[in-house]
């Protein structure tokens, strides 16, 4: 799983870091940064939750192709 944050859309709500603290963090200004990309398997559910809680819809998740 790949995950990206659109810096033009992110306004630092930090709800991704609340939903998935191992995947998302904060820069000096409180805007989201991706901590781990690709996202390890055990963090997939948390990363999807982060996407579903972003009020700015700034997160894009690219699921792995089915093997």
């Amino acid at each position, binding site marked *: 799983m790949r995950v990206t944050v659109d810096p033009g859309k992110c306004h630092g709500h930090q*709800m991704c870091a*609340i*939903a998935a603290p191992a995947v998302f963090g*904060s820069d*000096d*200004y*409180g805007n989201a940064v991706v901590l781990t990309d690709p996202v390890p398997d055990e963090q997939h559910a948390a990363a999807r*939750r982060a996407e579903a*809680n972003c*009020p700015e819809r700034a997160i894009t998740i690219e699921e792995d192709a089915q093997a």
Partner: protein
Amino acid sequence: MTATGSPTDWVTDYDIFDPDFVRDPYPTMSAIRESNCPVAHSDRWGGSWMPTRYDDVVAAAQEYDIFTSRNIIVVPPPTGQVEGPYAGVAAPPITSDPPEHHWHRRTILPTFAPQAVAKYEDGTRALCNRLIDNFIDTGQADAAADYAQQIPVRVIAAMLGVPLEMADEFTSWVRGVLEIGLTDPKVRLESRMKILGFFRGQLDDRKANPREDDLITELLNTQIDGQRVSEDYVMGVCNLMLVAGIDTTWSAIGSSLWHLAQHPEHRRQLREQPEIWPTALEELLRAYSPVTMARIVDRDTEFQGCPMHAGDRVLMSFPAANRDPRQFEKPDEVILDREKNRHVAFGSGIHRCAGSNLARLELRIALQTWLERIPDFDLVDPTAVTWAGGQVRGPRRCVVRFGNA
């Protein structure tokens, strides 16, 4: 013409200060949202529009070019009000528009980043414990006045490096701007002048005696493009931190305790599944969002079929947006482990509440400390709870009992 008495048609004549609306605004918000006119209008209180659907509120918040922040108070100030030497002092960045908004906001954001506010955690917990010490043996307390109201004012005062003993005065000044002053322009102006007069003195003190690790000193020394920022800007930031950082967070803490007092199953859930705290806090923020902001329409425009004119006021009802069934399943239910929650309690777009990380920290510590010390409590008299509303909604008197009392 301004109508008097309680409105009969809320879509064309809402009154955000109507006592029934202040006590429980959600049925009315829902009725407007589900009507064929979800962007309501009213001539009351200087006139305003009020979108109630999530998508409309978010769209207006994103369109900062049309919906400007020249004035963000839900009731306009009277014309011809004289502010003397403080006429140029606003509350940046909340009252700023691009392009200045960018540096106004960027200057203060690092102060409020999650990693920066973490240092206030221990002090906030100690403060909450001291407040509880004051009343725990009596078996009864006003969760709003004795607890919630006492917390953010001291956190903000510590941040600004101003005297904690003045907490009661700060609280009364802020209520004078955001609560009583909303419908009483004289009180609003007097309170504003007291706040700015106080900070004028603080700025003079820091200029004469600069301090280490001091926010006001740092703000005074801030340079943008090689130029020191104006003192009006620094005064404005201090004004914003006091006015926006106190009533709002205190209201969120108070509403959450009011909810928990009536929901033993939620207290138990938090006790037995502490891992749900992060989603629980967001859910309480969604369900009881305290803040409604205003915007001023820049130029004639049509918004969702409504003809808006330059200078019109638009109320950004984040509380209404956060109860929209188009966005939230079972929006009127508090579901502490809600999985999907794109709430906009802190706004949306470039004006996202700069202090949101601090507010969350205060809310979390206030609720966790309370529940650790007072796991079970209920309202003494649900009908005796009083609320403030309009711009910031939350309980102002909320007496609870606990223990064996």
